[in-house]
């Protein structure tokens, strides 16, 4: 491609490796901390696992080693099992159902905006105006609407329910879903549907049997982004749940103040929260790029 001097090449690799270190080191630290004894966390930073490490090693040389222990993981899934699994389950329920809802509803709206001509006479809005209105909702700071949510949910007994959280997350994920799917359907040739229609399929059949299977990549992108958003969401879970529907991020953030900061335990808990999304993300990383690029380039 291009020619570079030896100095340039070396600098390039040095920077790349340095930044890779910046990205990986905190993750390595999180992972190892979940296997460290409390003493190995609180005295000096210990870097490497070593089964033969003892507590009374001189701190200067051998202090960088710790003896890995499974205590915190056992605690998490034994003594604390009920709490851990409850909040993990809440996170899964909120994320999975809001993802399904947002993807289906968003795909329908995206299809509508791509294939039909709308005209809202009272506002004078056509498809583009409607699409812009929908995407603009995504940038509304959720803090602006949190007070009415508390009042509304309080009045209808929806505080601390799974349904309440799923509903809120669905509405947050919808604008992005509509935007991406509309984009996707715009790029999908209309001929296939039309020939299906000529062959006697109804509009619904054409949508369900031809369009949906062809738009799997778009649906995966939307599903991935919705899932990650709901999984990571903090503010609304904090405001709208107390206990029964409380999700992992709020549960983990709450570990801050309970019994002093127990880093080893927080690290294990955080691993449980982060690992699923990370694996999904790595597995589907080409969809991440696609989602971001489609989201940014077309707006």
């Amino acid at each position, binding site marked *: *491609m291009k020619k570079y001097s030896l100095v340039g090449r070396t600098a*390039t690799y040095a920077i790349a490796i340095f930044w890779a270190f910046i990205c990986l080191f905190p993750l390595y630290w999180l992972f190892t901390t979940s296997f460290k004894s409390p003493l190995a966390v609180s*005295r000096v930073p210990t870097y490497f696992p070593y089964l033969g490490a003892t507590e009374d090693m001189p701190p200067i040389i051998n202090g960088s080693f710790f003896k890995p222990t499974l205590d915190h993981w056992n605690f998490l899934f034994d003594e604390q099992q009920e709490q851990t699994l409850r909040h993990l389950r809440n996170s899964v329920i909120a994320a999975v159902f809001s993802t399904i809802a947002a993807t289906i509803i968003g795909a329908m709206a995206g299809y509508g905006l791509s294939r039909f001509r709308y005209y809202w006479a009272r506002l004078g809005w056509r498809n583009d105006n409607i699409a812009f209105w929908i995407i603009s909702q995504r940038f509304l700071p959720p803090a602006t609407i949190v*007070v009415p949510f*508390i*009042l509304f949910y309080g009045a209808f007994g929806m505080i601390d329910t799974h349904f309440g959280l799923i509903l809120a997350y669905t509405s947050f994920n919808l604008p992005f879903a509509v935007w991406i799917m509309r984009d996707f359907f715009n790029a999908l040739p209309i001929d296939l549907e039309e020939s299906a229609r000529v062959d006697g399929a109804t509009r619904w059949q054409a949508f369900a049997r031809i369009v949906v299977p062809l738009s799997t990549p778009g649906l995966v992108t939307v599903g991935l982004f919705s899932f990650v958003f709901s999984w990571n969401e903090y503010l609304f879970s904090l405001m709208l749940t107390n206990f029964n529907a409380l999700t992992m991020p709020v549960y983990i953030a709450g570990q801050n103040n309970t019994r002093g900061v127990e880093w080893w335990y927080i690290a294990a808990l955080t691993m449980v929260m*982060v690992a699923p999304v990370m694996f999904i993300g790595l597995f589907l990383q080409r969809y991440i790029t696609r989602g971001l690029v489609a989201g940014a380039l077309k*707006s």
Partner: protein
Amino acid sequence: MATATDIKPLAKADGSLTRELREDTLFKRLFLSPTVVILLLLSIFPLLWSLGVSFTNFQRNAAQQAARTAGTLEPSGFLGLGFDLTLENYQRVLTDEHLHTTARNTLIYVFLGVTVQYGVGLGLAALINQDIFGKTFFRIVFILPMMITPVAAGYLGRMMFEKVPPSALSQFLSTIGRAIGNPSLNIPFFTDPGWAPITMVLIDSWQWIPFMFLLLLAGMQAIPDEIYEAARVDGANNWQQFWGITFPILLPISLTAILIRGLELFKLVDIVRVTTGGGPGIATEPLVMYVFRTALDFGNFGYAAAISYILLILVILFSTIFLAISRQIQRAQLGVE
């Protein structure tokens, strides 16, 4: 070739719709309505309601506060109605030092965060866009932080920057500090009111530089090689090629990426919550945190709604000004070319 007989009439002679068109009208509504209904109900309606509440003295009383702690929250008065209208909240906005500090903090996060994230993201994208060994490996590693829950990123920040328990970085800095006899290297990342907001930006940037990196890299890879070849024939060096070709072509996507990140930074709260909790004092407290504290801890819904509207106004101002500026930039760019 379509002939006149191929085109089906949409309406019969008597004016009634054909089955075909009726079906289409039905589906046309069916496809879009769920989205519109949900957004009206859960976005537009709360937005207007919030505005309404911000003009009331709606406040949860002590008994309700206790009920909330016990988990049986029931705000008195249906849906916050039945309270006096007042302008007090907005009068308080003008004189509330706490609000001004939190607004300043939020703006620091937005501007500093966007600058750091764009700068580093652009550099890294240019780095990886070269023909280097291990490109895929670096790309995947570079985007890892983005896949982490922000709450987890906050905790990671504490593990990296805190002194108790001693972090690797603080150990490293104090060792170097001792070696060169300069103890001021031992930076109080979380406890100093000057440093703490910067630390928040650093943690958020660690997580979101990958976003800029990915977008800009995708943009760079879409630029055809022929453009560079032509420039090389004209004798342009790498540096000139980057600022003369890559950067201007990336400008539209850059502006969009900056806008998206800026708007997201207005919402920053989780990282602050698990690191400093807003402290020292209120030196790192963003507006969003002030909103939920006013609502949850003090039960003052009226004022919380007013603050949230200040946040909304800031967001709208930011986007409007930003869009105007980017339109200017792009017009200027087109003019030059």
